[in-house]
């Protein structure tokens, strides 16, 4: 089994999106790579092609990557039309050459969504996600002000569900997979994670309103329940969290509209 899998080599052609800069026209360029060990990762395939391009005097393909173990959320390829490639529940860096047939022509594109403009080739700017976080994706707790960690018990079921949501790696595949370029799964994951633990309750309404409204303002679309997002998610985060987000959002909208707020909020010590 070992010998069989690793001795096999194949050749493939990558049809890669090349774009010199944000406002430049892009086009597909073909690169053929021969005698590839099928245990090679897809990003290593790009490394090999880039070294060939460099030796040949060309400019290598820019692509985003870092940890190469599926947790940092940097890699962001659309492979044959699918964000993160053919397999469910993995990031681009966890896609391997063995997933392709000998002689295959593989299309490689950047994540495509208006709020994620192309920087160069396969690299996009996903700073919009940071802006959504900065608008409310946190619990306001100053360093040093925390009570003992066991002062508040959190039901195991809630902690587990919060962890399911918190597993989001912020890659943006959910946006790239959505025909509306909606960031709902990303926002839902953060809102659910913090909304499921007791520490997150005081700011729960404020948080959901701020994050959803910021996402809207940044140009992300609305959710129309196609669930392409959770199908493309490398962490398989469930679209059920979007339902939770919608409940929180509607509730928060009513509560803030009808609950009198103290005129003194925000003042004082």
């Amino acid at each position, binding site marked *: *089994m*070992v*010998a069989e*899998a*690793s*001795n096999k080599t194949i050749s493939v052609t990558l049809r890669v999106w090349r774009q010199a800069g944000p406002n430049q026209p892009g086009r597909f360029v073909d690169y053929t790579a021969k005698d590839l*060990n099928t*245990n*090679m*990762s897809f990003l*290593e395939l790009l*490394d090999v092609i*880039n*070294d060939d391009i*460099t030796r040949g005097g*060309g*400019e*290598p393909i*820019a692509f985003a*990557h*870092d*940890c*190469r*173990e599926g*947790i*940092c*959320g940097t890699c962001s390829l659309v492979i044959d039309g699918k964000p993160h490639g053919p397999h469910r529940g*993995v990031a681009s860096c*966890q896609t*391997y050459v063995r997933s392709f047939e000998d002689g295959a022509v593989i299309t490689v594109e950047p994540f495509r969504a208006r709020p994620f403009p192309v*920087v160069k080739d396969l690299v996009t*700017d*996903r700073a919009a*996600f*940071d802006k959504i976080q*900065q608008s*409310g*994706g*946190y*619990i306001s*707790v100053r*360093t*040093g*002000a*925390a009570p003992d*960690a*066991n002062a508040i*018990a*959190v039901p*195991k079921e809630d*902690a587990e569900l*919060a*962890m399911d949501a*918190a*597993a989001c*790696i912020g890659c943006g595949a959910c946006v790239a997979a959505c025909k509306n370029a909606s960031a709902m799964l990303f926002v839902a994951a953060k809102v659910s994670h*913090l909304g499921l*633990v007791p*520490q*997150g309750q005081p700011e729960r309404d404020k948080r959901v309103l701020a994050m959803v409204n910021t996402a809207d303002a940044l140009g992300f679309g609305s959710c129309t329940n196609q669930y392409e997002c959770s199908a493309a998610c490398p962490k398989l985060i469930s679209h059920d969290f979007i339902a939770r987000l919608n409940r929180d959002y509607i509730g928060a909208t009513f509560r803030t509209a009808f609950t009198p707020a103290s005129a003194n909020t925000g003042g004082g010590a």
Partner: protein
Amino acid sequence: MAKLDSKIPSGPLADKWRKHKTEIKLVNPANKRKYEIIVVGAGLAGASAAATLAELGYKVKSFVFHDSPRRAHSIAAQGGINAAKNYQNDGDSVYRLFYDTIKGGDYRAREANVHRLAEVSVNIIDQCVAQGVPFAREYGGLLANRSFGGAQVSRTFYARGQTGQQLLLGAYSALSRMVGQGAVELFTNEEMTDLVVVNGQAKGIITRNLVTGELRRWAADAVILATGGYGNVFNLSTYARGSNVTAIWRAYKRGACFGNPCYTQIHPTCIPVTGDYQSKLTLMSESLRNDGRIWVPKRKEDCRKDPASIAEEDRDYYLERMYPSFGNLAPRDIASRAAKRVCDEGRGIGETGLGVYLDFSDAINRLGEPAVRERYGNLFDIYHEITNENAYKTPMRIYPAVHYTMGGLWVDYNLMSNVPGLFVLGEANFSDHGANRLGASALMQGLADGYFVVPYTIGDYLAGQKPGSRPSPDAPEFKEAEANVRAMTQRLLSAKGTQPVSHFHKRLGQIMWNYCGMARTKEGLQKALQELPKLREEFWASVKVPGSADTLNQALENAGRVADFIELGELMCLDALTREESCGGHFREEYQYPDGECKRDDEKFGHVAAWEFQGVGQPPLRNVEPLNYEFVKMSVRNYK
């Protein structure tokens, strides 16, 4: 020679930090906003420091080379974070955590720093829970713990196999809150390329914007580097591809001393290399060694055979044979070196011959497949994803890999380097792990430094700086530093070579792995010290860096980092050669006990080596900070 004053407070061990906090100078709240602090890096140490300093009222600028602070490699830590909470009622205490860490570090760390680390560990857990970090819980809703190596108590807090991710997202959320409030200015895709020293003090940095290529000068009252470790000097490691030494290396070239560069930790259970295209090694949790048995064939000629066809009597369960009392759970460094030994004998398995089997068939026979699946299912899945092999049916193949560097820039008790105003946190400094780090302690140190140490100690430095006295970014020192960076960029782009950067990185990695890896010898290190200067010259003569300086150019970024790694490699080998003893991760073949344990020489080497730059290609100065053990007796590390 640099002056190294560790500034360890006097008095009983347990009172040092408390006493120090009451004695160091403070900056009054109205003055804090007059000070600007630069924080480079936003992993656990950098993000927690930037957020906390901003909360205190300082003006903070945060720089990261990633496209978002959430990408920092702290995110990949799996196992957990230690804290002396004693929630298990199993006899843990601050002193025990201190003692385990000192002993784990093979008596090469500072007692006072490590005790402080153990003290603040309990605050870290409080802070993270308050931020909403979803730690594992028991059915009653209270926090769960697991056990880790090098300890006899259960003190590790965890969030599934993604503890680093969850702690980083906690620190990132605190940082994001401060960015949202305008208290931190965040600069992403901005790589530090030089440190600016004015009148002997760190007063700013030069950055290159990785998207536009623009070089920028930034002045501040103090500079914090929290830029992680340098294990990618080996090319193949469990580090992220982008992890690099550049920020601390350029600070070293501006006068900051580099402490114990040769202390490297090599983890025994990683998925082995499959070919020369490989870019990354993936860790398989050490917990697998609880139920897996490690072996290689007794005969070389069996190595290429299907493992199932090798009879029981033809297998060498070498850890069980060599270390009968610990067996497959021998300490990390022992297990790593043993794997290297059997592979060097030609008995390694897999395509490259650099691998050993980790076999679960006994555990499956004993417990049944479902029980094994329940304990390790996610790890078997990861293994399958990468290797396409089913570890329930055929043994896993593993091999040791580089995954942490204990060395780093030298800092005093205040985490300030010998360059006043330059603070260094987390893996980037040398301070708390001695010659070997215990599992689940890296996350603890990063957050301790950022949340609970530097916010106090930086005030002591700033109180001595007049508000508004920071230099202008137009000062000559800034212009000189910018010109220095520009010249290096030009030199890289104009090199008339033919080989991509990866060619040199791979060769560097081979030299470092062969001669400065798991087992080091005088001859090998001397050989490396002949080869590395040649590699450096060859790099500059024949590297090819395509593209231009005024755009996103990943080859250029990489070229600068690899140029620094080649220089660092020389320093590591020199440090390893000079340290004529074995301790923790630094194993010199010449200095070992008959059973293969490290043979320290406390009399000659019971000190920190802090190297001082004297010019590229020039031998650096070796400064020494003696380690005075006042409270613990240095003894032979023994886990039997």
